[in-house]
């Protein structure tokens, strides 16, 4: 059994090495194929086998196509492409216009989203309609489409203006702001000394003791409230001993527009963000349910300085 494991590990090691070497080779090939004037040199230079020249030219073509595409995507952020709907019954012979939105954050292209349009109306060939898309539901795609890509209600004459460029721009803004907010919440967690959300999901997957957090463990049960408070008092006492009240949890909803903060003295808070990451308003309560107006006033402002403003 042990031998078997050892063998497996050895094989895995070999596989990793092969994969790394292949990656290196592909990388070098891409660099080589991107060399300027390579195509003219290939065409003019003498070759032993005409077939090989053809293969090389094909590879070259593929590489240069990729280079052009990537350059456009990198520089423009929103790019369009054409695909075909394989459905034999698709409208407009399956012609589909795709819009690809790149989200760039902190030196990386973190994700890309697609909106696919078709032309359902044979009379208005320029009228596009959202056919499929990969936009998460926390982005108001429907509202944006209703505003910038309206569908004409009547058949003719009332040509409602569709503005694909504005639509793409607005959608990209929404998506980028969403990613920035998510990153900002993560930064907030790190600033409070908590593991970032990706690490957290990893650790919670391994931890088996509870499957989740019961949210109404006190609302429907009045009898236990006094005992709950006993627990709280214990916590407060121990905290007063150490003289440190720290943040035990920061959570956010998926749209990253609401952030929940829990302190070790059972004080809780929730703030609502604008889309551009400004704290719009907040509500804070101490463990015995008193609203903390002072903190609520201090919370309003940019998200980055939130913890500092609250701890002042």
């Amino acid at each position, binding site marked *: 059994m042990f031998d078997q494991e050892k063998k497996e590990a050895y094989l895995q090691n070999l596989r990793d090495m092969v994969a790394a070497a292949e*990656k290196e080779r592909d990388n070098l090939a891409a660099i080589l194929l991107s060399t300027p004037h390579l195509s003219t040199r290939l065409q003019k230079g003498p070759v032993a086998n005409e077939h090989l020249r053809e293969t090389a030219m094909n590879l070259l073509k593929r590489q240069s196509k990729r280079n052009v595409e990537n350059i456009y995507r990198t520089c423009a952020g929103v790019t369009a492409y054409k695909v075909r709907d394989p459905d034999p019954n*698709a409208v407009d012979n399956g012609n589909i216009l795709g819009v690809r939105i790149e989200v760039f954050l902190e030196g990386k292209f973190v994700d890309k989203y697609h909106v696919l349009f078709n032309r359902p109306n044979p009379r208005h060939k320029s009228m596009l309609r959202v056919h499929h898309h990969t936009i998460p539901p926390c982005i108001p795609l429907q509202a944006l489409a209703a505003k910038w890509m309206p569908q004409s209600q009547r058949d003719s004459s009332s040509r409602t203006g569709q503005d694909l460029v504005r639509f793409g721009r607005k959608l990209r803004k929404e998506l980028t702001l969403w990613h920035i907010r998510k990153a900002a919440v993560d930064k907030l967690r790190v600033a409070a000394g908590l593991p970032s959300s990706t690490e957290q999901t990893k650790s919670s997957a391994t931890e088996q003791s509870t499957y989740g957090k019961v949210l109404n463990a006190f609302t429907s049960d009045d009898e236990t409230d006094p005992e709950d408070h006993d627990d709280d008092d214990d916590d407060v006492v121990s905290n007063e001993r150490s003289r440190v009240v720290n943040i035990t949890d920061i959570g956010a909803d998926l749209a990253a527009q609401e952030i929940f903060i829990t302190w070790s003295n059972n004080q809780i808070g929730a703030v609502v963000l604008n889309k551009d990451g400004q704290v719009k308003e907040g509500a804070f309560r101490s463990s015995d349910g008193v609203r903390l107006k002072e903190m609520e006033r201090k919370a309003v402002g940019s998200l980055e300085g939130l913890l500092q403003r609250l701890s002042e």
Partner: protein
Amino acid sequence: MPAIPGKITAPNYGNIPHSHRLPVTHREVVRAFGKLSRTSLITLAQQWLQKKNRDFCKPYLLGDQDKNAEEEDDAPYEPAESYEELQEIYKELLSRKGGRREVMDRILEGDWRTGISMYQLATAEIQHLLDHPQALRWTAKRMAKIPNNRVVKDMEVTNDSEHLPRFQAQTFMTNLAKELSPLMKAHYLITKLKTLPITILRVYIHDSPYSSEASLATDSNSSDGAKAVFFIWPNGSPYIYVSLATHLGQVVGDEGRHLRDVVLQAIPKAFSRPSSRYQLTPTNFTARSLSALLAYRGPGKSNAAAGGWSIFADHSFSQNALDFVATGKLSEAKGTSVDAVAQKAGPGRPKRHIDATETQEVKRRKAVAAGRFGSSGKANDGQGIERFEVRIDDPFPPQSNSTQQQQDATGASAETSRGKRKGRPSLLDRSAEDIQEIEELDNAWVPDVRVTFSGSHVFAGVRELVEQGVVDGEQMPGWMTGEAGVTIGAIKNGRIRSKGAVPGV
């Protein structure tokens, strides 16, 4: 309702608190605990013994014994002295092997012999749901804002607009209880999961004006209907999944369905705020598997990119914008690594020979299937749909000189639709406008044809049929790939009709 001497039983407006207990012989308790595995039972017990949950899950300790010591002589389990001792006992049980019966008996006849609290029952049922994500049948609904004429800027996207209903658990629970408590008594447990991006609400319906422990323990009616309803909110999406908590083989009676509907109607009201009212709209999607629901009606990118469009949702359609390597055989490399992992998982299994004899035709069919289904419809992706029903509203392909036959058939079809169908009307039944639309077609025969696919993973099955050459992958209509993202629908012009403006929002 028999009154218990010494206790006042009166109808009230309260909820059933977490700490109310059911006797261990109660039908619901026996059922819920009988389904759980050994590990789940131990995990639950440990969870109940945690400090924050102790108020709702009081075990039977040595200190409780003194009051009526004479009864306990024949008790099979010695009561523990303290919570800490109990925690040790369950830790020890977890570390060694044994049967599940042992743990279940210890819980029901030993440590919680005085009764299982509502909180415990609820957590046990949720645990079962997580252990068996295919146990229930879920219907996905969507929360839609009722358009408000006065507020014109309803749909405007601004810096601080929000288009999803805001979900705040405590506020929601208070509102829901306010809606429901005049109608029925209920116990609520709402849990935010760690492992999946969902929030679960379990409502245990107690059809009685009383919320006392004694009235809970008595089975108020003889009918064996489901008593609990589950609701799931996928975080960050406008959807809600609804299911009756039925047990295996349990028939859902009209009563259970009715109670579920009462709770269901209260939910959008509990979400609504002044000047933003919500309603639940159907989304034509029903499935057993939670991961399928999360893929088709979830918070992610795949809602409106099902079937072949799945290549846009994962990253197989376009590479990272800074990935300039165009020469590598990336997809092939990926394939082999997956195979390697699969083989590693079962070392005893003989190595499958990837048949080199694969003909050109087989390869072509596989490529067609890949083109139509993309990365969806894989048998082991866990996103299987068990049932897919469509009604075809396209006219029957015309045949030459067979009018007589046509008329006969029309008469027959009308008869079947009127006479044979009994019981509840199907969602697929044609509505009045559908019928009118069909009648407007000149001289076309539109029989009421319904096609139902069922199996453990319908679209994986269709994909396999394409790969085997049974179904022509190129001529196959798009709805057979599942790209419409519904489990029930009507087909017109070869496409599933979509009523909504933008799919999957």
